[in-house]
């Protein structure tokens, strides 16, 4: 076996941080994406404008710059707000934006914008007839969303979600720069201490490839699941 010079356990811990960060950010991104898609499809011009501004800004600025802004500036911004609370209402709270939370929020915010585009396309591709049929059955709007629109939409959204997830996974590497100890940071520290870049960077690269390959397999399964009843000739399946 390769000798990781005592860094093995820390690398594994780092890998766990990477996975946790990626999964939590994905969940936040999906929630934000659904909200953004709704905002962009809204007839209310203000809501629509906010949605558009959000996606444009996020997609025009590098992830790393947004992350630094949020991590270094976010804490000061939040402190300004809590200071106001203290002066106005005598409520003394302190909200700590640590590297992990900043990472989840930034990555979630960034990919929320991309997810928003994915979901918007997917919402639009659901035929209105299906929803009308659902209403005709007397389903409440919420039930109709859950049982009809959401599963139908997922069929169209899944390939986009899959792509976003792959990019998101790689974006997590950036948190190592703002000081979160993910596996890239552990590998970078080990490289600097031992002068053995290949020994640590290549295993980390392999872990990324492994996660990517596993996710590809998982998304193939999910696609099949949401594809039920639509035959083999659907557009993403060729």
């Amino acid at each position, binding site marked *: 076996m390769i000798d990781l010079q005592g860094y093995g356990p820390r690398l594994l811990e780092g890998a766990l941080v990477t996975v946790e960060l990626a999964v939590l950010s994905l969940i936040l991104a999906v929630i934000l994406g659904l909200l953004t898609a709704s905002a962009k499809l809204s007839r209310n011009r203000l809501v629509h404008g906010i949605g558009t501004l959000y996606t444009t*800004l996020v*997609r*025009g*600025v*590098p*992830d*790393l*710059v*947004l992350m*630094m*802004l949020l991590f*270094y*500036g976010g804490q*000061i*911004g939040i402190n*300004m707000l809590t*200071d*106001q609370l203290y002066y106005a209402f005598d409520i003394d709270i302190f909200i700590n934006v640590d590297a992990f939370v900043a990472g989840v929020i930034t990555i979630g915010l960034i990919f929320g914008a991309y997810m928003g585009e994915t979901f918007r396309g997917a919402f639009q591709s659901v035929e209105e007839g299906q929803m009308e049929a659902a209403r005709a059955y007397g389903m409440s709007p919420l039930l109709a969303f859950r049982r009809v629109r959401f599963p139908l939409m997922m069929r169209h959204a899944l390939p986009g979600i899959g792509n976003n997830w*792959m990019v998101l996974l*790689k*974006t*997590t*590497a*950036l948190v*190592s*720069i703002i000081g979160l100890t993910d596996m*890239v940071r552990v*590998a*970078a520290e080990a*490289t600097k201490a031992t*002068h*053995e*870049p*290949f020994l640590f*960077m*290549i295993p*980390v*690269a392999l872990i*990324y*490839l492994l996660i*990517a*390959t596993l996710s590809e397999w998982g998304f193939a399964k999910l696609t099949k699941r949401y594809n039920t009843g639509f035959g083999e000739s659907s557009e993403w399946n060729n």
Partner: protein
Amino acid sequence: MEQLNGWFTELLSGNLIFTANTLSFYWGGLVTTVQLVFLSLLIGVILAVPLAIGRGSKRRWIKLPIYAYTYVFRGTPLLIQLYLVYYGVVFFDGIQDSIFWVVFKQAFFPALIAFTLNTAAYTTEIFHGAIKNTAKGEIEAARAYGMSRKLMMRRIILPSAFRRALPAYGNEVIFMLHASAVASVVTIMDLTGAAYYVYARFYAPFQAFIFVALIYLCLTFSIMFVFRRLEKRLLAHLRPRA
């Protein structure tokens, strides 16, 4: 409110931070970023054309290594690729004494190599997809003219594929611009590096990073504008006619 006001007036007057000196840092950063991104995209495209053709080859010993290359480079973070090249080249025995050291001594070239290999992998896949989706009719027509495979590739398939690859390639250009921000971790004073320096020197995260975000935003919009214009001209034949 006082704090917010103070911060705002400081941002507006801003004379402590945005002096001619720091602005020259941003300007130098802009030049470096544009150079780095432009060169890596250019070399990346030159590499990607033969790779994309090879990727569609029927011969496995050509196809598989190229697929492995794109799979690895698209499946791992650019940051790791950058670290590998930057720290990796140093440990080849004797490189310090070879003529290559002139090149690798600076941080710019390791970064350029990592960025080029990365964008070449993505561009290969984009071109490969476009080549694969060439309309059957175009190929049949070329065959009917008695064109050889080589001639057909040069005259028919590639020009048509490049046009159709344009929107996806435009995204790749923007992606590369944004990804280039990681160059700052290996001491390159690109735009992000300049912002990071101004931040570390003046402890002013908002001013330093919002300013640089606006510059990136302008660059992104310019790239988008250029590609929209190009698409309009080159893809006119694909638009539904009214």
